């Protein structure tokens, strides 16, 4: 806006409004840029040949027939990779994952070889002709079995060195445990002994995956002293650092460009195809693109299946006095970010409850399954499924209303989380009461009669944003007064570009729509830890705000230098004109944000400052259960979230309903099925995700009136918060309706019917 003036009345007008996404027109016209669409001159396509065994030593790989296919440029195995990258192991927590399998394969679907060809169909046909011979080894798939260390997935642990709490694992042999996080508060055993009631349950979650509709895709263009990656990544800064490390190069020779993402949800983090295409481009000396078909997403990254053993002691007044949590995370063949999930979610495993004595053991486990990583909630939705089902089971056993039982036990504002960190701006009670009010909890429910039975349930949860992480932003005010924002946050649909532009506009008194948010390019955009864990709006938001404020202050300083009075109505363009005698120059503001943090004490996990902000949500669900078929119809789903002050309320609302819908799939039907380590439903035909027909009859998504006191403009992250409580609220409602308790997800008709018949002493026999 060339006419924007310093004293214009726009200040305070950009936050809290809901402009459409800046890129809305490009998206509805099909012209938005995605890596999926990109082609480079002389580019080759790669087709991955994958392991067919879950655990085995590679005896031989016969590529003769593949090489003979007309149009095949090259067939690449680990032997070729090692010649260009001598130590080709990567990963955010452990350097355990090879670019192509070396010596051993660790899960069905692990990349073993790649065919390169100009025509992707040729590459695909040729890859089918590769024959690999394996000496099969016993495999372990279950996380609890893996913890027994009878079958070892890796010979030795190789922590990356990035995280202090993993260093003690370096070189450790004879174990599948890639992290054993502990939290100890009070004396759990003594409290159990003194408790009036003790409850112990075990819950499990299934393996599900992200399935972004833009499948995994990366392109590498290697030149002798320069590498450019075009990739659908949620974390270009990490990609640059990790690829530079693999190449032994300084960061500034690796350039990572990321346009819009066709969805991410945590799947497109860290290294997925980037290291592979880099090696292939080095070998081929041509640009190489790998675009995975959807089937291969099932072999790339998934959510952690989990087993959670939870035990609580309750006193005569219905107060929880002790809780022991043992959580086993099924990380698959490579650690990816699993050890972070294990710790950063693990410390919230006892829930939003004020419990005097707590013991948490959270284990990251290697198994012979496809790797697991972050998926919209970083482990918290799995934990909440367990602890909120457990909460309801205790309330029912004690004949205390589930709402009332929670009221007696939640941590309230001003209290402390079990880590010892104060719960500030974490309105657990407010969210719980809002859910109860919206559910008309005090009014009796029509329970139905005949074969359809009705029930209702609720759940409440808390999550801490991962910490400590850093964001850097640059705001550039051009000579005509227009503004440009450089920030590394990836807009994968969450609307971050728009929210960040609103923040720039708020400070510099320009409409958000006029701010140019530069496409992500690590040669241009500064460091950001990654678009993950609901961290961006808070961390990058702070950096953007600081950068815009610095630019604003420099504009004011320029006006002073030019001898203009305070509050002058000269436009920014006029100031540049006056200063340089023509339309010239820039004003650049920078902002860096890293929150304060105190690492947890080893052994106890206690710290006075574990996170800069908490996320709280609650769900109320009403269901109808068909007692003849086990089919569950969700008649009402109310998701109440604390998101601080919404920067763009409409986009926030869409984030909440979208997250709840995704979690509904993970709750009701999504499940990867396995047979001997082989995924047997690796396609949308066999792995159902939510469609329009699956929405609850009444689907409400609400935020409570809140302000995050240390957040930028009172805001905080929104991407995950609506996922937490969907599963247990529905599970609790099913129990309320028909008196059966499901201990494992998904809550599909088969599971419900089996439980109903088992209750009637007519269990369905397994074939």
């Amino acid at each position, binding site marked *: 806006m060339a006419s924007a003036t310093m004293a214009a009345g726009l200040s305070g007008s950009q936050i809290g409004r809901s402009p459409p996404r800046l890129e809305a027109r490009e998206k509805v*016209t099909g*012209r938005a840029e995605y890596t999926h669409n990109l082609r480079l001159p002389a580019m080759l396509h790669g087709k991955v040949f994958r392991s067919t065994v879950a655990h085995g030593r590679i005896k031989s790989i016969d590529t003769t027939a593949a090489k003979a296919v007309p149009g095949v440029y090259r067939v690449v195995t680990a032997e070729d990779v090692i010649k260009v990258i001598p130590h080709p192991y990567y990963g955010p927590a452990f350097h355990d994952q090879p670019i192509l399998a070396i010596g051993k394969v660790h899960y069905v679907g692990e990349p073993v070889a790649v065919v390169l060809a100009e025509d992707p169909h040729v590459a695909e046909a040729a890859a089918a002709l590769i024959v690999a011979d394996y000496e099969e080894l016993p495999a372990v798939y279950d996380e609890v079995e893996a913890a027994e260390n009878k079958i070892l997935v890796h010979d030795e642990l190789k922590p990356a060195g990035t995280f202090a709490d993993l260093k003690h694992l370096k070189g450790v042999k004879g174990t599948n445990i890639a992290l054993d996080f502990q939290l100890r508060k009070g004396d759990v055993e003594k409290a159990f002994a003194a408790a009036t009631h003790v409850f112990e349950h075990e819950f499990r979650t299934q393996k599900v995956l992200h399935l972004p509709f833009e499948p995994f895709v990366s392109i590498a263009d290697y030149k002798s002293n320069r590498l450019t990656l075009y990739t659908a990544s949620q974390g270009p800064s990490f990609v640059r650092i990790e690829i530079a490390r693999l190449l032994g190069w300084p960061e500034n020779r690796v350039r990572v460009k990321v346009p819009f993402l*066709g969805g991410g949800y945590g799947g497109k983090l860290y290294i997925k195809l980037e290291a592979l295409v880099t090696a292939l481009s080095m070998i081929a000396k041509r640009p190489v693109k790998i675009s995975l078909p959807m089937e291969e997403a099932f072999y790339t990254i998934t959510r952690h299946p989990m087993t959670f053993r939870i035990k609580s002691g309750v006193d005569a007044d219905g107060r929880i006095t002790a809780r022991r949590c043992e959580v086993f995370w099924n990380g698959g063949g490579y650690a990816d970010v699993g050890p972070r999930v294990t710790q950063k979610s693990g410390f919230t495993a006892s829930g939003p409850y004020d419990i005097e004595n707590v013991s948490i053991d959270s284990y990251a486990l290697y198994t012979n399954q496809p790797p697991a990583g972050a998926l919209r909630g970083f482990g918290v939705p799995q934990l909440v499924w367990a602890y909120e089902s457990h909460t309801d089971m205790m309330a029912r056993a004690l004949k205390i209303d589930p709402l009332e039982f929670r009221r007696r036990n939640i941590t309230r504002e001003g209290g402390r989380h079990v880590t010892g960190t104060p719960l500030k701006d974490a309105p657990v009670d407010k969210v719980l009461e809002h859910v109860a009010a919206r559910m008309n909890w005090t009014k009796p429910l029509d329970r139905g009669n005949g074969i359809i039975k009705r029930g209702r349930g609720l759940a409440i949860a808390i999550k801490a944003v991962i910490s400590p992480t850093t964001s850097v932003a640059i705001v550039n005010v051009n000579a005509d007064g227009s503004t440009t924002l450089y920030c590394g946050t990836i807009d994968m649909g969450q609307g971050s570009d728009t929210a960040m532009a609103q923040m720039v506009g708020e400070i510099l008194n320009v409409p958000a729509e006029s701010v140019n948010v530069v496409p992500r390019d690590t040669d241009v955009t500064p460091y950001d830890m990654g678009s993950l864990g609901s961290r961006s709006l808070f961390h990058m938001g702070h950096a953007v705000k600081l950068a815009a404020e610095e630019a604003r202050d420099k504009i004011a300083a320029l006006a002073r230098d030019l001898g203009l009075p305070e509050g002058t109505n000269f436009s920014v363009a006029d100031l540049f004109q006056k200063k340089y005698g023509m339309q010239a120059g820039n004003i650049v503001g920078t902002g860096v944000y890293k929150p304060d943090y105190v690492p947890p004490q080893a052994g106890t996990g206690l710290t006075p400052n574990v996170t800069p902000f908490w996320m709280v949500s609650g769900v109320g669900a009403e269901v109808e259960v068909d007692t003849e078929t086990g089919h569950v119809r969700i008649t009402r789903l109310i998701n109440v979230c604390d998101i601080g002050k919404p920067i763009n309320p409409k986009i926030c609302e869409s984030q909440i309903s979208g997250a709840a819908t995704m979690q509904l799939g993970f709750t009701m039907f999504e499940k990867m099925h396995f047979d001997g380590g082989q995924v047997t439903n690796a396609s949308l035909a066999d792995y159902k995700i939510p469609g329009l027909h699956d929405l609850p009859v009444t689907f409400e998504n609400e935020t409570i009136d809140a302000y995050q006191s240390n957040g930028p403009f009172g805001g905080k992250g929104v991407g995950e918060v609506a996922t937490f409580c969907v599963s247990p609220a529905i599970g609790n409602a099913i129990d309320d309706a028909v008196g059966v308790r499901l201990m494992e997800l998904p809550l599909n008709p088969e599971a419900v019917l089996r439980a109903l018949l088992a209750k009637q002493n007519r269990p369905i026999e397994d074939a």
Partner: protein
Amino acid sequence: MTTTRSIAFTLNGEQVSAQIASHHSLLEVVRNDFSLYGARESCGQGLCGCCTLIVDGRAVSGCLYLAAFADGAVVETIEYLDRDNMLDPVQEAFIEEGAFQCGFCTPGFVLMVRQLLDEHPDPDDDQIRDYLSGNLCRCGAYPEVIQAVKSAARKRRAGNPT
């Protein structure tokens, strides 16, 4: 090498021809030969709707539609809608209602909603769900899509020329 053949068809109002192999999908042809990237392959099984193309007035899954069958057909892609730099009312409604997040599935939804409104100018919720059951959105922008359909229907009935 694979044998190829030539097909001629109308693409977004223009007569075009392409050299194709028998295994090429129409989706590949519009993307690779004509640089029209609004339709995308996602599931590769005709289940998600991301690859939606209009062939002789009907929405088809471009990833499954063999290019050879398009010989002589009239093919339209999402890019045809704003050929005069004017948005279709459905596109306007999608923007106003915020009926998408990542945008990858959006062109397919827009094309299918147009077909719905052509056949049912004032659709009820069942008709909306029925017509859009072949369009999936992993971001879950379904409530906003329903609002956008209703808003677009109102716009079209009002004869809004944009």
